[in-house]
Protein backbone atom coordinates (compact mmCIF):
# COMPACT_ATOMS: atom_id res chain seq x y z
CA UNK A 1 0.00 0.00 0.00
CA UNK A 2 1.13 3.53 -0.70
CA UNK A 3 -0.37 6.62 0.95
CA UNK A 4 1.30 9.90 0.15
CA UNK A 5 0.59 13.59 0.62
CA UNK A 6 2.57 15.75 -1.80
CA UNK A 7 2.94 19.52 -1.76
CA UNK A 8 4.18 20.00 -5.32
CA UNK A 9 2.77 19.16 -8.74
CA UNK A 10 3.24 15.43 -9.39
CA UNK A 11 3.04 13.16 -12.44
CA UNK A 12 0.30 10.65 -11.62
CA UNK A 13 1.18 8.05 -14.27
CA UNK A 14 4.88 8.16 -13.47
CA UNK A 15 4.06 7.80 -9.77
CA UNK A 16 1.98 4.74 -10.61
CA UNK A 17 4.74 3.18 -12.71
CA UNK A 18 7.35 3.95 -10.04
CA UNK A 19 5.24 2.31 -7.35
CA UNK A 20 4.49 -0.75 -9.47
CA UNK A 21 8.16 -1.30 -10.15
CA UNK A 22 8.47 -2.51 -6.58
CA UNK A 23 6.51 -5.66 -7.07
CA UNK A 24 3.17 -5.27 -8.77
CA UNK A 25 4.46 -4.79 -12.30
CA UNK A 26 5.22 -8.46 -12.66
CA UNK A 27 2.59 -9.96 -10.40
CA UNK A 28 0.78 -12.53 -12.57
CA UNK A 29 -2.09 -12.80 -10.06
CA UNK A 30 -3.29 -9.33 -11.06
CA UNK A 31 -5.87 -9.30 -13.84
CA UNK A 32 -7.41 -5.88 -13.23
CA UNK A 33 -6.17 -2.41 -12.31
CA UNK A 34 -8.59 0.46 -11.78
CA UNK A 35 -7.23 3.99 -11.56
CA UNK A 36 -8.97 7.28 -10.86
CA UNK A 37 -7.33 10.66 -11.37
CA UNK A 38 -8.88 13.89 -10.12
CA UNK A 39 -7.55 17.07 -11.72
CA UNK A 40 -8.22 20.73 -11.08
CA UNK A 41 -10.77 22.36 -13.35
CA UNK A 42 -10.84 26.04 -14.23
CA UNK A 43 -14.50 26.36 -13.29
CA UNK A 44 -16.84 25.37 -10.48
CA UNK A 45 -20.54 26.04 -10.64
CA UNK A 46 -21.02 29.66 -11.64
CA UNK A 47 -17.42 30.87 -11.51
CA UNK A 48 -14.09 30.73 -13.25
CA UNK A 49 -11.42 29.34 -10.94
CA UNK A 50 -7.85 30.54 -11.35
CA UNK A 51 -6.17 28.83 -8.42
CA UNK A 52 -6.77 26.69 -5.36
CA UNK A 53 -5.25 26.15 -1.93
CA UNK A 54 -5.60 22.64 -0.55
CA UNK A 55 -5.24 22.41 3.22
CA UNK A 56 -5.05 19.15 5.18
CA UNK A 57 -4.66 17.88 8.74
CA UNK A 58 -1.20 16.24 8.86
CA UNK A 59 -1.38 12.96 10.73
CA UNK A 60 -5.15 12.58 10.68
CA UNK A 61 -5.29 12.70 6.90
CA UNK A 62 -2.78 9.89 6.47
CA UNK A 63 -4.53 7.82 9.16
CA UNK A 64 -7.90 8.11 7.41
CA UNK A 65 -6.47 7.35 3.97
CA UNK A 66 -4.81 4.22 5.36
CA UNK A 67 -8.02 3.12 7.04
CA UNK A 68 -10.00 3.73 3.85
CA UNK A 69 -7.60 1.68 1.72
CA UNK A 70 -7.43 -1.11 4.31
CA UNK A 71 -11.23 -1.29 4.36
CA UNK A 72 -11.27 -1.65 0.56
CA UNK A 73 -8.54 -4.30 0.65
CA UNK A 74 -10.60 -6.39 3.05
CA UNK A 75 -14.02 -5.77 1.50
CA UNK A 76 -12.99 -6.42 -2.11
CA UNK A 77 -10.00 -8.71 -1.55
CA UNK A 78 -7.89 -6.37 -3.63
CA UNK A 79 -4.19 -7.15 -3.85
CA UNK A 80 -2.99 -3.61 -3.26
CA UNK A 81 -4.09 0.02 -3.23
CA UNK A 82 -2.54 3.46 -3.66
CA UNK A 83 -3.58 7.03 -2.85
CA UNK A 84 -1.50 10.11 -3.64
CA UNK A 85 -3.13 13.44 -2.74
CA UNK A 86 -1.88 16.92 -3.46
CA UNK A 87 -1.91 19.80 -0.96
CA UNK A 88 -0.70 23.41 -1.17
CA UNK A 89 -1.24 25.86 -4.01
CA UNK A 90 -2.67 24.38 -7.21
CA UNK A 91 -3.35 25.63 -10.72
CA UNK A 92 -5.95 24.40 -13.21
CA UNK A 93 -5.00 21.03 -14.80
CA UNK A 94 -2.87 20.10 -11.75
CA UNK A 95 -3.46 16.53 -10.54
CA UNK A 96 -5.29 16.57 -7.18
CA UNK A 97 -5.57 12.89 -6.35
CA UNK A 98 -4.77 9.53 -7.85
CA UNK A 99 -6.34 6.32 -6.50
CA UNK A 100 -5.45 2.84 -7.77
CA UNK A 101 -6.61 -0.68 -6.91
CA UNK A 102 -5.17 -3.96 -8.16
CA UNK A 103 -7.08 -7.25 -8.07
CA UNK A 104 -7.66 -10.57 -9.80
CA UNK A 105 -11.03 -9.60 -11.28
CA UNK A 106 -12.37 -6.35 -12.64
CA UNK A 107 -15.47 -6.05 -10.45
CA UNK A 108 -13.33 -5.82 -7.35
CA UNK A 109 -10.87 -3.32 -8.77
CA UNK A 110 -13.64 -1.05 -10.08
CA UNK A 111 -15.58 -1.17 -6.80
CA UNK A 112 -12.54 -0.68 -4.60
CA UNK A 113 -11.32 2.42 -6.45
CA UNK A 114 -14.80 3.89 -6.42
CA UNK A 115 -15.29 3.20 -2.69
CA UNK A 116 -11.90 4.68 -1.84
CA UNK A 117 -12.77 7.89 -3.72
CA UNK A 118 -16.18 8.21 -2.07
CA UNK A 119 -14.76 7.58 1.41
CA UNK A 120 -11.90 9.98 0.79
CA UNK A 121 -14.37 12.70 -0.20
CA UNK A 122 -16.53 12.03 2.86
CA UNK A 123 -13.94 11.45 5.58
CA UNK A 124 -10.39 12.51 4.76
CA UNK A 125 -9.60 15.94 6.24
CA UNK A 126 -8.78 18.07 3.20
CA UNK A 127 -10.20 21.52 2.46
CA UNK A 128 -10.22 23.42 -0.81
CA UNK A 129 -10.13 27.19 -1.06
CA UNK A 130 -10.71 28.53 -4.54
CA UNK A 131 -9.49 31.75 -6.05
CA UNK A 132 -12.26 32.84 -8.41
CA UNK A 133 -13.21 35.85 -10.47
CA UNK A 134 -15.37 36.78 -7.47
CA UNK A 135 -12.63 36.39 -4.83
CA UNK A 136 -11.51 33.61 -2.49
CA UNK A 137 -13.99 31.09 -1.12
CA UNK A 138 -13.86 27.83 0.80
CA UNK A 139 -15.42 25.07 -1.24
CA UNK A 140 -18.56 23.68 0.38
CA UNK A 141 -19.33 19.99 0.18
CA UNK A 142 -22.39 18.77 -1.67
CA UNK A 143 -25.35 17.56 0.40
CA UNK A 144 -24.09 14.02 0.85
CA UNK A 145 -20.53 14.77 -0.17
CA UNK A 146 -20.56 11.35 -1.77
CA UNK A 147 -22.67 11.72 -4.86
CA UNK A 148 -20.98 14.20 -7.14
CA UNK A 149 -17.92 16.34 -7.40
CA UNK A 150 -17.86 19.11 -4.88
CA UNK A 151 -19.86 22.06 -6.04
CA UNK A 152 -21.02 25.18 -4.35
CA UNK A 153 -23.19 28.12 -5.11
CA UNK A 154 -22.23 30.72 -2.57
CA UNK A 155 -19.04 32.09 -1.13
CA UNK A 156 -18.25 31.36 2.50
Amino acid sequence: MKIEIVDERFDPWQSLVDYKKNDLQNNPKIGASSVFLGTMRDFNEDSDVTGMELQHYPGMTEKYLEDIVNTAIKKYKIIDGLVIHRVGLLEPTDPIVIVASWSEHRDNAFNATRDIMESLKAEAPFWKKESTDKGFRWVKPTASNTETEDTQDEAQ
Partner: protein
Amino acid sequence: MHKLMKIHVKYFASVRDLMGTESKDLDIDKSLSVYELWKDLTAKLNVPKDVLIAVNHKYVDKDFKLNDGDEVAYFPPVTGG
Protein backbone atom coordinates in the same frame (compact mmCIF):
# COMPACT_ATOMS: atom_id res chain seq x y z
CA MET B 1 -7.06 20.56 44.03
CA HIS B 2 -7.15 19.35 40.44
CA LYS B 3 -4.19 18.39 38.37
CA LEU B 4 -4.04 20.63 35.28
CA MET B 5 -4.66 18.89 31.95
CA LYS B 6 -2.72 19.94 28.89
CA ILE B 7 -4.87 20.22 25.74
CA HIS B 8 -3.61 21.06 22.26
CA VAL B 9 -6.22 22.70 20.00
CA LYS B 10 -6.10 22.93 16.20
CA TYR B 11 -8.30 24.75 13.71
CA PHE B 12 -8.58 24.21 9.96
CA ALA B 13 -10.00 25.98 6.91
CA SER B 14 -12.90 28.38 7.58
CA VAL B 15 -12.77 27.66 11.33
CA ARG B 16 -9.13 28.71 11.34
CA ASP B 17 -10.09 31.96 9.58
CA LEU B 18 -12.84 32.51 12.16
CA MET B 19 -10.55 31.87 15.13
CA GLY B 20 -7.67 33.84 13.65
CA THR B 21 -5.11 31.24 14.65
CA GLU B 22 -3.93 27.76 13.64
CA SER B 23 -3.51 26.23 17.08
CA LYS B 24 -3.51 26.87 20.78
CA ASP B 25 -2.12 25.11 23.86
CA LEU B 26 -4.31 25.19 26.96
CA ASP B 27 -4.18 24.02 30.55
CA ILE B 28 -7.63 23.16 31.89
CA ASP B 29 -8.40 22.35 35.51
CA LYS B 30 -11.53 20.25 35.08
CA SER B 31 -12.65 17.65 32.60
CA LEU B 32 -14.52 19.28 29.71
CA SER B 33 -16.32 17.94 26.70
CA VAL B 34 -15.12 19.11 23.30
CA TYR B 35 -18.33 21.14 23.13
CA GLU B 36 -17.68 22.85 26.47
CA LEU B 37 -14.12 23.62 25.44
CA TRP B 38 -15.38 25.30 22.25
CA LYS B 39 -17.64 27.55 24.36
CA ASP B 40 -14.71 28.49 26.57
CA LEU B 41 -12.65 29.33 23.50
CA THR B 42 -15.29 31.48 21.82
CA ALA B 43 -16.96 33.73 24.36
CA LYS B 44 -19.67 31.09 24.91
CA LEU B 45 -20.69 30.55 21.30
CA ASN B 46 -22.40 27.29 20.43
CA VAL B 47 -20.52 24.94 18.13
CA PRO B 48 -21.91 25.60 14.64
CA LYS B 49 -24.00 22.72 13.37
CA ASP B 50 -21.61 21.79 10.58
CA VAL B 51 -18.35 21.98 12.52
CA LEU B 52 -16.64 18.59 12.81
CA ILE B 53 -14.54 17.65 15.82
CA ALA B 54 -11.64 15.19 16.05
CA VAL B 55 -9.67 14.11 19.10
CA ASN B 56 -6.30 12.49 18.55
CA HIS B 57 -7.06 12.17 14.81
CA LYS B 58 -10.44 10.45 15.23
CA TYR B 59 -13.87 11.96 14.72
CA VAL B 60 -15.81 12.35 18.00
CA ASP B 61 -19.24 13.67 18.91
CA LYS B 62 -19.68 16.88 20.87
CA ASP B 63 -20.04 15.17 24.27
CA PHE B 64 -16.63 13.54 24.06
CA LYS B 65 -14.68 14.26 27.30
CA LEU B 66 -11.11 15.47 26.98
CA ASN B 67 -8.19 13.85 28.75
CA ASP B 68 -4.73 15.11 29.62
CA GLY B 69 -2.54 15.40 26.56
CA ASP B 70 -5.37 15.24 24.00
CA GLU B 71 -5.19 17.02 20.66
CA VAL B 72 -8.60 18.37 19.66
CA ALA B 73 -9.35 19.78 16.22
CA TYR B 74 -12.34 21.81 14.98
CA PHE B 75 -12.99 22.12 11.26
CA PRO B 76 -15.71 22.42 8.59
CA PRO B 77 -16.92 19.53 6.40
CA VAL B 78 -14.12 18.09 4.31
CA THR B 79 -13.80 18.78 0.59
CA GLY B 80 -10.81 16.85 -0.70
CA GLY B 81 -10.36 14.66 -3.73
